[in-house]
Every structure is written in C-alpha cells, then in structure tokens.
C-alpha cells in the first residue's frame, strides 16, 4: 500500500547527526509506507528534518513493525523514568 499516512510533529531543543555532522532538528514525520532500504514491503519510517538546512539535513530510519513497537515501549519507559530525575 502507498498509505500516504503521515504524522508530523514540531521538534524543539533537539539535534540529529547526518552525513554533514550534527544539526538542530525542526520537524519529524512518522509514516507507515514503503521503505527505501529495509527488507520489508512496509515499515514505520521516521524522518527527522531541518528544512532550513536543505533536504540533506535528514536523519532517517525505517523500522519493522516489531522494532517500532519495541522502540515505542522503550521511549515510554525512558520518558516515564525521566520524570523522576
């Protein structure tokens, strides 16, 4: 499927490392669609972007559905733990 399904968030006070080194992140898009590289028909894809620095300012991941679920749980745990720091 070409789902077009896309969630987009604003990203603040965050950084990513791309081919040119570290850069500040501005947006992230999350979508379930065809991967470019991962060996599956559909993956959960995340693009961390900084449009001001051009299309190459991008940190991209293509995650299998199982991996995305594990990441989600890990993020949840970490964020909850962070609240106690």
């Amino acid at each position: 499927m070409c789902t077009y399904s896309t969630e987009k968030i604003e990203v603040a006070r965050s950084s990513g490392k791309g081919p040119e080194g570290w850069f500040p992140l501005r947006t992230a898009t999350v979508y379930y669609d065809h991967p470019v590289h991962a060996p599956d028909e559909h993956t959960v894809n995340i693009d961390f972007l900084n449009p001001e620095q051009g299309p190459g300012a991008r940190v991209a991941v293509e995650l299998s559905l199982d991996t995305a679920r594990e990441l989600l749980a890990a993020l949840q745990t970490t964020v909850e733990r962070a609240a106690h720091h």
Partner: protein
Amino acid sequence: MAYDAVLAETVGIRGHGDDLVEAYTARPLAPGPRGGVIVIHHMPGYDRESKEVVRRFAVLGYDAICVNLYSREAPGAAPDDAAATARARGGVPDERFVGDARGAARWLRDLPTSNGKVGSIGYCSGGRQAFLTTVEVDVQAAVDCYGAFVVGTPPEGFPLQVQPLADRVPEVRAPILGLFGNDDSYPSPEQVDELEKLLQESGKTYEFHRYDGAGHAFFSVDRPSYRPEAAVDGWRHVEAFFATHLAG
C-alpha cells in the same frame, strides 16, 4: 538486424507557473513520427527505477519523459531525501502537478518526432495523478498503476494534500488502463470496483486488470513488493494499450 538505440538525458522543461523543472527523458534514435509518454514517478520519488521505466518506453518506441515532481522542494537532492522533504511539506499539490504534466505534454509534442499523441502512466501516488491527467491534461491514454484515493476519502487529520477525484469521473477525456493488486489496501479491491462502476456509469472507455497474490507496487523491481507474474502481464497490457491509442 534492427537498430536499437536510445538517447537518455536530464533536461529542464517549463512546468507549472512557467517554472524551470528537472526532467529525465529517453527517446529512440530512430526517425518518427511516434507517440510520447509521460512517466509519473511514485511517492518515493524520481529515483533510479523511475528512470529505468523512462528508458524502457524509449526502447518500446516512444519519446518518454519523467518530471521530477520534487524539483522545487529539493533541487539536486538524493531521491529519498527529496521525497522526505516533499512529504513533510504535505506532498505535491494537484494544481502544481497538472502544470508540470501540461509542460511535459507540450515538451513531447514540440519534438520533431512527435505524432501529436501523448499518454501518461503513473505508479502509486502517480497512479492517481495519471487519472488526473485524463481530466486536466491533453492526453490520449492514461495508465493508473495502483493509485490510491481516486475514490475513497483520506482519513481525518490527514496532512497530505490529496483529495479524492471520484466527482471528476464524468470529465475523463481519455481511455484509462488500470492495473491493481488484489492484496492492496490503498486502493482496496472495493475501491477499484467503485472506480470501475463510476467509469461504467459515465460511459468512459477503460480496461482494468486485477492480480491475485499481488499488493501495492508490484511493478517495483527493487522492492519486496515486486511480483514478476503480475508485472510481466501488466507490462503486456501497457504495451498493447499504448500501441492502440498512441499510434499514428
């Protein structure tokens, strides 16, 4: 021995708003006249495989061109980065696509080899856009390869600029070949049936083929979704369809 040679190159053409946009073209190195084909790339972008499709149409005897629909957002960027940028900005507006497709049709007709006929073929989001060319662009034939949201409504809160085109069916001006996988969800088999019904009711010329064991993107040779049997049969229909409607 038949002479088999094509010229393939990047060109700049005038698209929507008279903007200069990047395009990839391949033409047979043989005298015309012959038809032209607009190849509309899938949502992942103007990539190596899309360019291979352009060259294939030249080998089949057509002047072919594919506009980089993400030229404006991401000039010179890697195809995957360009697609990510376009997606983050909400995708390609229909109006801009139509302007670029009209520019491509004009460019093809201006070639000295042109017989005046132009067809379009699009994959994935390009399938929907190929349908749109039959309404908005002077084409003599169009091939919709698994385009979603020709019928059906995008989910609420959907950030991409894509509206269903069902209400435009009465305005269709060119024959349509539709190629779909029965395991696809976008478009689903029910949506394909709905589109077929609308085309029938409006008395349009169309030809649909549906493939079992194939889902979305079964033509994509570099992806796990590739289904050789569906793709080989699909190409056979594409060749016959363009031979019928773009000859002369």
